[in-house]
């Protein structure tokens, strides 16, 4: 099997199935299958679990680049689009549950919430910003947008910050869990900041590159990653 075949027939189907596990679990709880339960307030449970799954997948999406660079597995990039689209899927589900099951389609309250409740404003903003990313995730769009595709998709950093902030802000008192998300996000973004600095330094003084083998490896794998984008990231 070639790498492409392995991804197409094994890894991608596995990741696809794994991304559906939270949904299956919630469905079991909602319908009482296998004795699962969503507790006394199923609406809140569905709403929160979908939101948290979306955040988990968003962080996983952001983890793809560091992991592939640090492990020297550039092909991992092929899984990123699926993770990102599933994050979008769970965000939409989270929002739909909030509007339909929680607010019970009271659109006046929805408007007031978005306008007046900062944590809902930023959460809604993150959802809106994800739409263009989902729309431009196809190969055709990647080709059409060329270099602009990458600039556009850098929005995901802002989206992730808004998402974690949205989580932090709606917690009543015990902020330990959102702080864990914030710490992971900080590490993932911090990695990129450090990498950009290393690259800039290397560009300024090419001789320094030879001095640190690890840096050189990082740079080369991420460069090959960039060239993967339009053709091999299916």
């Amino acid at each position: 099997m070639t790498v492409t075949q392995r991804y197409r027939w094994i890894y991608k189907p596995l990741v696809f199935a794994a991304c559906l596990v939270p949904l299956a679990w919630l469905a079991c709880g909602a319908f009482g299958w296998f004795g699962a339960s969503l507790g006394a307030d199923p609406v809140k449970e569905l709403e929160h679990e979908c939101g948290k799954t979306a955040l988990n997948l968003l962080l996983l999406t952001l983890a793809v680049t560091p992991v592939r660079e640090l492990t020297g597995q550039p092909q991992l990039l092929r899984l990123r689009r699926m993770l990102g689209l599933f994050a979008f899927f769970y965000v939409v589900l989270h929002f739909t549950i909030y509007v339909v099951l929680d607010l019970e389609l009271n659109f006046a309250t929805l408007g007031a919430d978005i306008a007046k409740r900062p944590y809902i404003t930023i959460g809604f903003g993150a959802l809106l910003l994800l739409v263009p990313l989902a729309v431009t995730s196809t190969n055709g769009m990647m080709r059409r947008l060329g270099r602009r595709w990458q600039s556009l998709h850098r929005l995901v950093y802002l989206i992730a910050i808004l998402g974690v902030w949205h989580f932090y802000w709606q917690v009543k008192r015990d902020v330990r869990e959102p702080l864990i998300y914030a710490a992971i996000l900080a590490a993932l973004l911090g990695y990129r900041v450090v990498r950009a600095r290393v690259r800039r330094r290397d560009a300024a003084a090419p001789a320094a590159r030879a001095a640190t083998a690890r840096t050189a490896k990082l740079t080369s794998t991420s460069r090959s990653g960039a060239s993967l984008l339009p053709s091999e990231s299916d």
Partner: protein
Amino acid sequence: MKVRIPRIAPSEITPEGVYLNRRSLLAGALAMGASSLLRAVETPQAQGAALSYTVNAQYSVKEPPNKFEDIASYNNFYEFGTDKEAPSHNAHSLRTRPWSVSVYGEAEGRGTFDLDDLLKGVSLEERIYRFRCVEAWSMVVPWVGFPLSTLLARFKPTSRAKYVEFTTLYDPHQMPGQRVPVLGWPYVEGLRIDEAMHPLTLMVVGLYGRVLPNQDGAPLRLIVPWKYGFKSIKSIVKIGFTPSQPRTTWSGAAADEYGFFANVNPQVDHPRWSQASERRIGAPFLAARRPTLPFNGYAEQVASLYQGMDLRRYF
């Protein structure tokens, strides 16, 4: 002498939901092996000793009460963890007997009293009250208890007693949530003396005709039905009479979000969410949200306590 009307407590009848749940419990046991991701149904059952009480229909709402399992598995009792289900899992470590209550401050009858002595000769009554959490969900609960006023009168508060201060047990061994400083322990709540003496204000020892489950604040908790739930302090060990307004826990944690009065008020939003409506726990899908009523529907009885007060300022 009060006539006790014997009756079958609602908790003695196995509700259909529980009966049906047994089947899903079996299915759950089978599924447990299949996937550790699935949470088995762990609905707490009414197990406490049956209490003898009268039904106070005058002070009971006509709405259908929530299921026992909901009331005993969906709790904000941070002393046992901050998740709603955590208290029902963790509160078994609380020892509710022997239990003593210390009375201090501006009263003649100060001292430390054994709870069973305090409860001797008290006539218990069942009252079905609305319960509105500051988080914008609500329930209807059949509490068993007695008016706080009858208890406070026994301690003979002096004219300097303007407020009553309540304190929850502090014991991180029994209350593992207290090992984490999410709130300033011990939990303290307070009422103005006229609020405390109001006939709706209840000292609760039971639920659904039986001794109160630990996760609901056993052995002794307060219920002030026109205020947000956090005012209704649980597992009380101290009652003090004070000349000035007590420093209460939530108000101390975030004064802009939780006021001392905390009267249910659809006009005054929590800074981060609306209080105009609430979701009734246990209500059917798409029919659970309802408008929040001023003073949680008890305005007729209690609004006069706040005449002339700016309820936006004193929220």
